[in-house]
């Protein structure tokens, strides 16, 4: 993974000193609250319902064991012994004190971490495929591109006061595991007819109150043009994006209003005037970054591990976990293991400091010291020998982290919701917990198969409900929580926004409503057909009919 050089280290240290100074200037009145707010937001400090919240960047979801141990320490010392992984693969602490923040930033800088641009109207933490470097369908590892963009977007003098936040995601594989079409800019690495590597550039995706799927504005961008092209896109947006209404200020609205073709034309006109080579990182710099992501020294192993097969045959629970939570590795004899943070009854994405240490130890011993955080709020051990899987699983069982549900109905994405968030209109975590309990039965989950439920506690859609196979949106109607259910959303390369099934239901009725939807699938599916495939084939009608059935017998 990437390691800081002297320049990166100095940059982050100076940022800590700068924030300390900003806090001091706020406290002595030089900065008023309005002026201080964007400064603290750009350093990940939110004022939430009960306390300040600190959001720490985990660039493209990659962490080392040492970094995770530091997060564990911060969780213990400054929070309540746990942290929360978000859908942008960041870590949030919900209970730090403002006066402790500079000290926490120092601890982060010690392990090459920061909170830069995890909030505010600027370019946010860049995300990428969590299986980067290990997926067989990968054309090129997206992480060097993501790291280059992380550096380029940090403290960009021109693009730190944008109309609204700006999110970039990169995938290097055929299968989109980074939800790139739901980003302000999505980049897909591809090969053209001449065999050259470049990017498909998609612009104007986003969820929130106006969900949009990004449109392609450049089918093939040569790699060397990346930073100049990003500069052109951001300049057009910075100059012409709407600033009259914060709900219409994302680039997706501009793309929608003027059309993707016109947007592309303006970008290309700006791009044509730029001196590309003067903006681009030179090839040695690109190579320097890429070298950090070179494939590790894999052992030559047989594809089949006798130890792994024997353990599966002898232990049914392990066999189930292995069938659900492993992702095939491109190198024979290895696997990527998903550690679910969706234990039945847990808050999705929460992890205790103790668990962080267990996971860090596992990564250090068995996964070349590296971890990945997924946008689905789980953790991945990316480089595991199949021989070691059984012992890893046993340690996960002891730590309460061996839930076998990756990609299944209880692997629910949920935002913090009304339990923490000042924007929320309804609770999210309790809904996720109720659904997890309802579908806890392992056999039944396996029978239902791949099904993503995503829950947001308000229309800002941090829980990605628009792209959930089943999406749940918590609203408030005359003082009551009301949950709107959508169906048919898709977060992959076939991205789609879910459609609303009918009127909202009260919190208590959500599990029954989901149950009725699932029953339609189970009754109508053909052999091997997944939930989302069945929804596409059957259309909304049968699900709608079942959804609208009353759960309660008439009085």
């Amino acid at each position: 993974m990437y390691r800081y050089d002297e320049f990166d280290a100095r940059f982050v240290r100076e940022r800590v000193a700068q924030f300390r100074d900003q806090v001091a200037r706020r406290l002595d009145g030089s900065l008023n609250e309005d002026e201080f707010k964007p400064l603290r937001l750009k350093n990940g400090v939110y004022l939430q319902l009960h306390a300040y919240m600190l959001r720490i960047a985990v660039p493209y979801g990659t962490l080392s064991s040492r970094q995770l141990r530091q997060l564990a320490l911060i969780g213990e010392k400054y929070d309540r012994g746990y942290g929360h992984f978000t859908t942008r693969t960041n870590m949030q602490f919900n209970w730090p004190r403002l006066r402790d923040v500079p000290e926490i930033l120092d601890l982060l800088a010690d392990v090459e971490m920061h909170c830069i641009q995890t909030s505010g109207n600027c370019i946010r933490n860049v995300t990428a495929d969590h299986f980067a470097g290990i997926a067989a369908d990968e054309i090129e590892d997206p992480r060097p591109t993501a790291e280059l963009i992380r550096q380029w977007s940090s403290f960009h003098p021109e693009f730190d006061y944008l109309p609204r936040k700006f999110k970039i995601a990169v995938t290097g594989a055929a299968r989109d595991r980074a939800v790139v079409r739901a980003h302000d800019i999505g980049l897909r690495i591809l090969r053209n007819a001449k065999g050259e590597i470049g990017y498909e550039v998609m612009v104007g995706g986003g969820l929130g109150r106006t969900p949009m799927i990004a449109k392609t504005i450049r089918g093939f961008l040569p790699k060397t043009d990346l930073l100049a092209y990003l500069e052109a896109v951001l300049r057009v947006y910075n100059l012409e994006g709407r600033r009259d209404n914060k709900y219409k200020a994302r680039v997706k609205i501009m793309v929608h209003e003027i059309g993707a073709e016109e947007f592309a034309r303006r970008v290309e006109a700006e791009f044509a005037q730029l001196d590309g080579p003067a903006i681009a990182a030179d090839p040695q710099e690109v190579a320097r970054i890429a070298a950090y992501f070179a494939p590790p020294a894999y052992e030559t192993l047989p594809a089949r591990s006798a130890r792994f097969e024997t353990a599966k045959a002898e232990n049914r629970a392990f066999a189930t976990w292995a069938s659900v939570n492993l992702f095939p590795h491109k190198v024979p004899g290895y696997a990527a293991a998903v550690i679910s943070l969706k234990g039945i009854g847990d808050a999705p994405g929460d992890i205790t400091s103790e668990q962080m240490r267990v996971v860090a130890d596992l990564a250090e011993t068995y996964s070349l010291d590296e971890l990945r955080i997924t946008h689905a709020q789980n953790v991945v051990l990316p480089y595991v020998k199949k021989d070691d899987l059984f012992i890893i699983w046993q340690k996960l069982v002891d730590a309460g982290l061996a839930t076998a549900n990756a990609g299944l109905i209880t692997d629910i994405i949920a935002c913090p919701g009304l339990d923490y968030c000042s924007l929320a209109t309804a609770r999210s975590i309790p809904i996720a917990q109720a659904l997890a309990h309802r579908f806890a039965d392992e056999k039944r989950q396996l029978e239902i198969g791949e099904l993503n439920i995503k829950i947001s506690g308000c229309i800002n859609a941090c829980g990605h409900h628009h792209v959930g196979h089943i999406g749940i949106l918590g609203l408030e109607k005359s003082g009551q929580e009301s949950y709107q259910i959508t169906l048919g959303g898709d977060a992959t390369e076939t991205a789609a926004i879910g459609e609303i099934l009918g009127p909202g239901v009260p919190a208590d009725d959500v599990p029954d409503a989901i149950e009725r939807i699932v029953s339609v699938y189970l009754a109508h599916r053909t052999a091997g057909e997944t939930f989302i495939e069945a929804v596409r084939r059957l259309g909304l009608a049968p699900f709608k009919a079942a959804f609208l059935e009353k759960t309660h017998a008439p009085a």
Partner: protein
Amino acid sequence: MPLLDRNGLKPDEWTISEDGTADAPRILVAFDHLKDALSGNGRGRRIGVTIANTLKSDALVPYLNDIDLVSIAFPSYGDGRGFSIAKQLRRAGFKGTLRASGPLIADQFAYALACGFDEIDLPQAQAARQPVEHWLKAAASISNTYQRGFGEQNILDARRAARLAGK
């Protein structure tokens, strides 16, 4: 209003004259009156222009050789359009003074300088709370950033220089 540049506070030698009729050696006119002010400029006055941040920089390009100062309005510190306009004007070859005018905060000083601004024209209220030392300190708080083409130095070129020196 207080005016400052990278060396600190400085006197403002420009006279605001929206319609360009004032009798002064340096006048700042509104963009709508720029053409007239330039064509009637037989007296050797220096002309500058104030523009809103909604003006397309292309509209100013024909005049760039004839004007000495462009003052770009920042209606609020959160509205970053002026940074892009400054960048475009420098790219178009403008060699005169670029002034950011509005309620910026000290923490934006470095950005403004990197985008091509020379000076900040600050409303009294902001200047009263944020003394000039804050601005000079803030401008120096981050010694180097990653973007090429913004300011005199950047980390990418520093790395390149280090590579060349070391090998």
